[in-house]
């Protein structure tokens, strides 16, 4: 059984999705989905343990040898991502039943869980597989279910947001498909390990350059890297609250994983950073993303919009860490992937609770909520502090390593800009805090009570994780460091 963990990780939620349809009743479907997601979480914990103890796990699907068969490959990086996705999914699901009962009409609730499971298995599959074409298939499984999930939102703008995401997402995925096709044309293989071995022989051809560019641009579209981020704010703002919490914490992280996997492992570090001026390009776009998105966040009236723009800014930090291209820089990126999932999971779940009680997340509806929903608002405060990067929260850890990496490289201006970017986070987080604690409650909201426990428990699990991993950093740093070192050693060619 233990040998088959890599495939079980993906196949359990995939098989559970149609079963969910058979169950039919929403409450049972929810319990079932929760159990399946918890099972996926358990598998990912076992996988991480196994990888940390005995190194990379290789699993050949159906016993066919790679590169003919599809291979699943779990190293520290994969295991970390699998853990993040399945953990966030499980925690978010705890609040799902209460939340969607209000946000989705009764006849569609079962479909919600079907789509949710498909999306989950798609993301897990992207991370687990070591086959380039398989990545595309899983990418589309997760994306197609994501479009449908977003379109379930109550507001009609959800439909429009979902449509725009569909167009952008499909262009991105098709670009990746073109890139994979060109790579196959040059090397005759789709296995990532095999590609890494064969690409250097042909790396000075225009075809490989073109393949690289298509793959990178395609991933950046999925990543919502500034200036390709336009689909993200509305998609996050109008999707059902639970969907927002799940995607904000996981979807863009999967794209970050793909970016790292393709640049470091498949194309190799020396090719990736010399074929196009990736370093300066990503540094500029990352920093521009931080400032433009943070500034936009300050002017938002819808709090979901506000944190969605903040997500784009946080992706900027991850990309800056990536562009530094040192072990510390990459480690900072991976830490931020982990930490940002915890922050945004907590923040968007808290917003889901507000949505449940008030039915809106406009900033002017937050007046006086600090007294009426003390636990939910406290969660937003702590999540916000973490977003800013205050010590004793996870946000501090990743910012610390990011600045360390910039200084190591001698990039002082970058370190200063990162700190300035955090100041902008202070401003937008403060706007929410000010509304919640320093304004008198609205007359219409006087009867509003604290959110039910089904919300408070998952929210506070994530909030406590925010603090716990900000103090006891052994798990996150160990894994991120091992993954980062592994990527640099495994990457063919010398580092620039």
């Amino acid at each position: 059984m233990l040998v088959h963990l890599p495939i079980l990780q993906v196949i359990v939620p995939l098989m559970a999705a149609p079963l969910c349809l058979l169950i039919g009743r929403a409450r049972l479907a929810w319990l079932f989905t929760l159990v399946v997601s918890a099972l996926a979480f358990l598998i990912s914990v076992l996988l991480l343990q196994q990888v940390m103890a005995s190194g990379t796990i290789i699993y050949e699907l159906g016993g066919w040898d790679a590169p003919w068969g599809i291979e699943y490959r779990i190293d520290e990086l994969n295991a970390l991502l699998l853990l993040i996705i399945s953990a966030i999914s499980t925690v978010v699901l705890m609040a799902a039943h209460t939340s969607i009962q209000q946000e989705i009409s009764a006849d569609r609730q079962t479909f919600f869980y079907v789509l949710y499971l498909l999306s989950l298995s798609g993301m897990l599959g992207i991370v687990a597989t070591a086959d380039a074409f398989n990545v595309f298939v899983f990418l589309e499984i997760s994306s197609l279910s994501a479009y449908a999930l977003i379109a379930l939102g109550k507001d009609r703008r959800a439909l429009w947001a979902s449509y725009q995401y569909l167009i952008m997402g499909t262009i991105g995925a098709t670009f990746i498909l073109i890139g994979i096709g060109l790579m196959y044309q040059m090397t005759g293989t789709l296995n990532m390990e095999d590609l890494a071995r064969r690409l250097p022989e042909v790396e000075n051809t225009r075809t490989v350059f073109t393949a690289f560019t298509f793959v990178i641009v395609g991933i950046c579209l999925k990543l919502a890297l500034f200036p390709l981020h336009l689909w993200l704010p509305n998609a996050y703002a109008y999707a059902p609250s639970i969907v927002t919490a799940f995607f904000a914490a996981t979807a863009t992280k999967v794209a970050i994983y793909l970016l790292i996997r393709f640049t470091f492992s498949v194309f190799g570090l020396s090719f990736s950073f010399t074929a196009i001026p990736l370093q300066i390009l990503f540094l500029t776009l990352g920093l521009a993303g931080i400032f433009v998105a943070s500034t936009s966040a300050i002017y938002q009236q819808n709090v979901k919009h506000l944190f969605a723009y903040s997500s784009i800014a946080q992706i900027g930090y991850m990309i800056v860490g990536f562009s530094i291209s040192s072990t510390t820089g990459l480690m900072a990126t991976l830490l931020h992937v982990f930490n940002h999932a915890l922050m945004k999971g907590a923040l968007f779940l808290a917003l889901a609770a507000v949505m449940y009680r008030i039915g809106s997340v406009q900033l002017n509806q937050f007046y006086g909520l600090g007294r009426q929903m003390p636990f939910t608002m406290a969660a937003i405060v702590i999540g916000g502090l973490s977003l800013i990067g205050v010590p004793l929260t996870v946000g501090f850890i990743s910012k610390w390593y990011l600045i360390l990496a910039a200084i190591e490289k001698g990039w002082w201006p970058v370190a200063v800009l990162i700190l300035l970017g955090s100041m902008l986070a202070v401003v937008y987080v403060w706007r929410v805090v000010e509304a919640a604690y320093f304004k008198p409650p609205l007359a219409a909201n006087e009867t509003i009570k604290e959110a039910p426990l089904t919300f408070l428990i998952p929210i506070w699990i994530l909030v406590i994780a925010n603090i716990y991993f900000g103090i006891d950093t052994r798990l996150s740093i160990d894994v991120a460091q091992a993954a980062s070192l592994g990527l640099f050693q495994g990457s063919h060619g010398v580092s620039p």
Partner: protein
Amino acid sequence: MILGLYNYWIVVVLMMIGFYIVIAHGNLVKKIIGLTIFQTSVFIFYISIAKVNGGTAPIIAEGIQLYSNPLPHVLILTAIVVGIATTAVGLALAVRIKEAYGSIEEDEIQKKDNLDC
């Protein structure tokens, strides 16, 4: 040069036509048509790179040594299925948008959204 690589020319031209429609047209159904053409160009690309000079269809038969590469064909079967699913979801969304907004023109939808804000 030009004639020898004609399959790539077809792919590139189709790709650009599709891409242009997606960007330039405001009608949601036309956008999806553009997207489909864009995806189709990639299918043709995959199928054309599978051709081996002098090779026949990849079916084992006596006296035939040279076959075209069947793998891209299989890959693209999957991609076609994905493409159809995307088109279906896109069209379904267009129907729902028509019901909710009373229009499938991008600028009119945007106008109504701006009024809502």
